[in-house]
């Protein structure tokens, strides 16, 4: 308990914001990728159904696997990209605030 000085807590907050910024950024990228993969999956499914082409089956399977993995690891999937962007901006501001606070402490 006594390990939590003001400085250490501020550093932990900065780390948290960094982590969340990264996660939300990754999420944004993932959502983009997700959107692409979903479209790809639709297209492949169509090609597999319509044209009964086996060559697209493997790609479909791989795409579905990637999609599942992405969906499992994605955070804030219910947020729209604009909302994600907003979250990222909030955390960037928060990180700035705490960084200035840390500099004041060290100063």
């Amino acid at each position: 308990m006594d390990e939590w000085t003001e400085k250490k807590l501020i550093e932990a907050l900065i780390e948290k914001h960094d982590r969340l910024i990264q996660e939300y950024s990754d999420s944004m990228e993932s959502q983009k990728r997700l959107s692409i993969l979903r479209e790809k999956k639709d297209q492949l499914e169509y090609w597999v159904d319509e044209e009964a082409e086996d060559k697209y089956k493997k790609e479909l399977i791989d795409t579905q696997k990637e999609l599942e993995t992405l969906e499992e690891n994605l955070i804030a999937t219910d947020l729209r990209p604009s909302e994600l962007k907003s979250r990222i901006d909030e955390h960037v501001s928060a990180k700035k605030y705490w960084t200035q606070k840390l500099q004041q402490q060290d100063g």
Partner: protein
Amino acid sequence: MDEDKIKQDIKPQTDEISECKKEIVKIGGEIKKLQKDADHLRDKRDEGNNECKSLAADARQLRDKRDSINQKIAELKKQRDQLNKKSSDMSDDIKNSKQKRDELNEEARGTDSTLKKLYEKNIDKLVNRDMPLRDEKKLFKSVFEIRNRLEAAKLADEFHEKVVSTYKELKELDDKTDELTAQIRSHANEAEEYHLKTIELYDQLHKISKESDEYHEELIKKYDEINKLRDQIKARKDRITEIEQTIKPQTEILDGIRQEKEKKDLEEKAKKAREKLKEQKRVSFNDLRVLFEQDKKEQTD
């Protein structure tokens, strides 16, 4: 000179001498009786004085014992006073610790365990949960307030422990004080007993001393009486001497006459004894004695 005439002439004086002698004997008897009384009084006085000496020694011993116990009591009281002072200081400590504890508890507004849980929960929230900056700032401030409260709660617990342990020490101290008080009371009772016995002995001593003094007073009076009677005897002896001086010429003559008579009587008896010897008759021891005395007399003459 006529023996009877001389005797007649000095009869009043010789009668007076006889009378004086009779009185001397009588007074002597009285003196003996008084001396017997005096001996009795002296014995009673000395007996009383000896008893007083013995009682005084006993009383001194008891008094010394009492004084020794009183000294012990003083020492115990000093020890008890020290304990009482310590006890008073500890009571003040307890009062101050309680006050401090209560102030800290007021500051803490919670127990150590609940505050710790709250603190850890808020830290976890702060470093892990996604929340707006506004909430973060509030929670950040709150975390350190809770920590201060937690420290206050811990310190309050320490003060409470101090109160409990001091109470325990105080109880032990009170037990020791009670023990000392019991010892003091017991010694005081013992000292009181010795004191009362001492008083009793001194009372006895004074009573016997007073009696001895009275015997001594009586003894002095007896001595005075004896001395007065002795003076009476001396007076009579002086009178006898005076009279004897007055009739000395006559008594010398009478002595001469008596001696002559005795001489003649001895000669007569010796003559008869010699005759017995000549006749070879049995002689008695008295006869031999008479012969011997006669020979002796002739040698000295």
